């Protein structure tokens, strides 16, 4: 029985789900954090997405299964964000709640070796690029504010940030895949267009 022959809601075997989780859970969580800007909510949505994969992922093709999972997670994230916005509006009317100090899933977003790799890569940036990274990422300035404070045009600020990010990402990829040259990051996985 091939995947095409299976009904749309056929479950996926648990071993495949577990292997998929081990391989893609961290990246899926990062993607959801980028969409939701809330690590706790992102973790909940990731769990829901993997539950959907276990329940209905049997019909997906193995080569497009990752894209299927991310798309399902994206839909769940949008639903959750809308629901969360409504809930937040209601909550703001009811009471103010202090921030949660318990450990959060975002600690899994980066690993110690990645931090070290990025730290080294930051040291290899030009001073102008470092200043731009500092302004945007550390000091939480907008690009326009950073450009104004640094006395440069907005396009220049964007260009510096783009170059810095490219170099940092390249360094991060080379560390992740054990490459020492760091010049050519590994090619990305095929990007199937999900229906």
């Amino acid at each position, binding site marked *: 029985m091939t995947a095409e022959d299976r009904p749309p809601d056929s479950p996926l075997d648990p071993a495949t789900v577990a292997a998929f989780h081990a391989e893609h859970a961290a990246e899926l969580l990062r993607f959801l954090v*980028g969409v939701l800007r809330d690590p706790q909510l992102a973790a909940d949505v990731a769990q829901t997405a993997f539950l959907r994969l276990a329940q209905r992922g049997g019909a997906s093709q193995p080569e497009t299964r*990752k894209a299927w999972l991310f798309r399902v997670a*994206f839909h769940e994230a949008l639903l959750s964000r809308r629901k969360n916005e409504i809930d937040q509006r209601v909550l703001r009317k009811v009471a103010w709640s202090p921030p949660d100090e318990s450990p959060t899933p975002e600690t899994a977003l980066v690993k110690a070796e990645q931090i070290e790799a990025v730290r080294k890569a930051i040291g*290899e940036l030009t001073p102008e690029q470092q200043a731009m990274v*500092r302004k945007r*990422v550390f*000091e939480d300035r907008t690009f326009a504010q950073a450009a104004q404070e640094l006395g440069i045009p907005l396009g220049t600020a964007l260009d510096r940030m*783009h170059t810095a990010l490219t170099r940092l990402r390249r360094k991060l990829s080379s560390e992740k895949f054990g490459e020492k040259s760091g010049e050519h990051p590994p090619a990305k996985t095929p*990007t199937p267009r999900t229906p």
Partner: protein
Amino acid sequence: MNNPSPAAESLDFLAFRYVVGELTAAETTAFEELLEADQAAREAVAAAVEITAAIQAAGIQPVVAGASVSVGGAASASPHGTFGPQDTASTPSTATLGSTANLRGTTRRRPWRVIVSWLVGGSLACLGMVALVDHWAAQRLRDAGGDLASGSSGDAASDSVPGQLARLWSETRPLAVGNLTGDSDDPTDTDGVGGLFAAGTGAVDGPIDAVADAPSWMIAAVAAKLGAMGDESAEASMEPTAMPHSSPHVVPDAKPAAGAIP
């Protein structure tokens, strides 16, 4: 962002701007439509989150030995300082991805460090307390020893704490022995009498002093009584049916103390 440069149009940078919240509403809607259809865009968002979190962590977490603390030689050239733990003070307590994202875990101080610091501090405080108490107790003993030494012979041997204890023991021991040998009111208790007679054997030293200190009339009375008891027991052994009135001064039911006569 109305005037992005051509370089900023790449998917990765678009994803970064989306993550940090620097897309306009229209751009956000368009990008989310792209996210709906394009897996590369989704992976770009994940990569943007990863790199942003790593940059924030690299500037906040402590530098591991061997890693560069600052941004290389550019640190001094940069008017904006260096990357590293020293940036924590100038960084907002809650790091953000853009204006709304929250990455609390990458910026919050690790709880185990707090626990370890409390444990170390508590241990040092306990050690300090123990040292203080020990010093105080030794000082008290020295003071007490000084008082005793000032009231006694004051020789060098008695200045030490063991010497003072030994001297105190030797001073109080005769009193304790005297209590044992003379203060018993129990008529069945023969230890006192036995102790007196044991003194004659030289088995112990304490009763010798007690006998020496006892008045002569007491010794004579006790000896006479014991002598009478010895005669009665001798008569009883010769005449088992002897009348109890043969010795009117002896209590009829009085029994000789076992082992009292050597």
